[in-house]
């Protein structure tokens, strides 16, 4: 679990990632895997844009009335026989969950995929309390074997090649025949299915996240393709749901709206395979299902994002489309971001949750190409929000000194047009003269960040404004 962010070392992380040939090979799969499938799914649904707008409006409505919907949700969960817990911090949430597990004498805990559980370091807390926490989503299972964190919010093992997974399975599943063939993904999947089936049946507690919490009915909704979330929450005697407070939606209709944009944006599916609404524990006469149902509602910094310039980020439904379409993410993968949430959504959310002092690199490492905002199913203005972080940094003098100095000089001249024209026409004449033979510079003082990797085209020599004025004079005479 990544409670200790390496985000301040983002550049070093990125450097390592760019030199990692296995990672670079694996990242190649993001393209066909996500981008083309999403595009095809959107193409097939003419109402998609309308749905995005409605989804944005719905989330805004919920955030503006979050206290009231939470209250109603809480009442409905209790009415269905479930128990509701609130946690101000990740630590508090971990303690609540560990206490529930202990109270039931749990030894083994299965887990469905949950990003908030990664955020709060839940697996570590469970293991520190002497219980086994088993991730059951195939991707999460693989990275748990490797003691890694997810590199993507919906495809946690997207940074790995099948050869790497094979090596891990051979290392960990040492009770199986060493001569078995594991060269194809289907063989790896079959092996994981067998190994995890035992774990599902043996678990005392199942923990899942929630994609949505429905205020109207007190239901938690999980969306999976594998069915692991359902086995996690159906088989053990205790089901604990962990979710952050902004997951609330008012009604079943509202949940349906978000489902329509979620799967398409995430994997290009119209609908994920299993969408399950869970409402309280097993009923009288039910042949299966947990006897106890708990929901742990985590704040961990969300409530202070409400009403401020980062509130839009709380619309996020964790589809991963922003990172799937991000050129930076494509280049370096998710781990380089150094904490739980990578890509553009991570670049906005991380500074909000761990502080801009530690997370400040992320909103700066963007070209503002805008592709993330263009695909976001709830229309979060991600580049704008990243820019707001840069403003916070600038105000607090956290912007690197060299950059601040450079900007200061530029700003000084740019505010003084006559001085600017004089200075720039002189400078460009010099640069143009020096660069005239090659037409470019392979090295330039103060621009090594640029010229280390590419040439700097040389200027023509005269500025446009001075040449324009000269030509206008000619024209008139």
């Amino acid at each position, binding site marked *: 679990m990544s409670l200790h962010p390496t985000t301040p070392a983002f550049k070093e992380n990125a450097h390592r990632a760019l030199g990692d040939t296995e990672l670079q090979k694996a990242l190649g799969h993001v393209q066909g895997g996500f981008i083309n499938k999403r595009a095809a799914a959107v193409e097939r649904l003419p109402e998609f844009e309308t749905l995005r707008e409605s989804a944005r409006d719905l989330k805004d409505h919920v955030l503006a009335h979050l206290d009231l919907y939470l209250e109603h949700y809480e009442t409905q969960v209790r009415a269905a026989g479930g128990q509701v817990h609130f946690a101000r911090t990740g630590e508090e949430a971990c303690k609540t969950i560990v206490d529930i597990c202990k109270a039931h004498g749990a030894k083994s805990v299965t887990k469905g995929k949950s990003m908030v559980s990664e955020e709060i370091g839940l697996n570590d807390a469970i293991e520190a309390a002497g219980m086994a926490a088993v991730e059951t989503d195939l991707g999460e299972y693989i990275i748990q074997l490797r003691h890694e964190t997810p590199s993507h919010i919906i495809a946690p093992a997207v940074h790995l090649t099948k050869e790497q997974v094979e090596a891990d399975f051979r290392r960990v599943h040492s009770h199986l025949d060493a001569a078995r063939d594991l060269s194809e993904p289907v063989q790896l999947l079959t092996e994981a299915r067998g190994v995890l089936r035992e774990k599902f049946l043996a678990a005392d507690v199942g923990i899942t996240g929630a994609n949505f919490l429905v205020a109207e009915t007190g239901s938690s909704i999980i969306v999976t393709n594998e069915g692991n979330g359902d086995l996690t929450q159906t088989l053990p005697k205790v089901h604990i749901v962990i979710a952050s407070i902004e997951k609330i939606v008012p009604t079943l209709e509202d949940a*349906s709206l978000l489902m329509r944009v979620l799967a398409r944006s995430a994997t290009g599916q119209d609908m994920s*395979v299993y969408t399950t609404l869970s409402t309280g524990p097993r009923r009288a006469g*039910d042949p299966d299902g947990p006897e106890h149902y708990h929901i742990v509602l985590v704040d961990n910094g969300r409530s202070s994002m409400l009403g401020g310039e980062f509130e839009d980020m709380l619309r996020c439904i964790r589809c991963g489309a922003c990172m799937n379409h991000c050129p930076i993410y494509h280049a370096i993968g998710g781990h380089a971001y150094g904490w739980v949430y990578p890509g553009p959504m991570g670049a906005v959310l991380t500074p909000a949750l761990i502080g801009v002092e530690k997370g400040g690199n992320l909103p700066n490492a963007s070209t503002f190409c805008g592709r993330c905002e263009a695909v976001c199913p709830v229309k979060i203005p991600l580049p704008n929000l990243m820019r707001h972080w840069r403003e916070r940094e600038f105000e607090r003098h956290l912007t690197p000194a060299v950059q601040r100095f450079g900007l200061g000089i530029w700003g000084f001249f740019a505010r003084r047009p006559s001085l600017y024209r004089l200075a720039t026409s002189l400078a460009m004449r010099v640069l143009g003269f020096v660069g005239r033979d090659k037409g470019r510079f392979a090295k330039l003082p103060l621009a090594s960040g640029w010229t280390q990797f590419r040439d700097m085209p040389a200027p023509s020599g005269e500025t446009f404004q001075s040449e324009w004025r000269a030509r206008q004079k000619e024209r008139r005479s």
Partner: protein
Amino acid sequence: MSARDDVFSNIRRSLGVTGKEATRRAAVGQRLETTPRGPVPRRGQGSAAARMATFITEAQRVSASVVMLENAAAIPAEVARYLSECNVAPVLRMGADARLAGLDWAGAGLSTSTGRSDGSDLNAISHAFAGVAETGSLIVLSGPDNPATLNYLPDNHIIVLAVSDLCGDLETVWTRLRRATGALLPRTVNIITGPSRSADIEQTLLLGAHGPRRLHILVTLG
């Protein structure tokens, strides 16, 4: 202050509200009361025949197989045929759903048993509460009639859908569900769209991750 109170007061402080504002309460109350629908795609709409065609197309798109049957009495024979085609033993686990319990399974050469699954069942059959044309999805309600474990543990899952239960969209399902169950939903409402799958290894899509490897849908017309 309790964690709960703290969280609520932080939310309200950030929003600049007290929680007692009549207009806010009215807005929330009205939404919960009237459950307004968002934009509903046209794909699932149309005549009964059009909706059925869409349902079949969409279910097949997600790798489920679909068969239409004249009436419920034809179910056992089709199940026997299907299991034989899958080359698995003619055994079948099911819940107490009266629409399935009364059928002549033995006559089709099937050996059936009833109740939840403990993980050893190869095949299971459930009866859907509804189907959704828009996405080829089936809605199965947990309870004694259709234990939730049957949806996930067996390798082959067969789901029966009565044609009269086919809806265009999820919104229509919710309206019917509220009418059928009242305010308290069944413990789980399972929306199933094709068989289990994963693309977690190199984005290669594979069926049969943790749940069923196959999903066979029987639509009964009578």
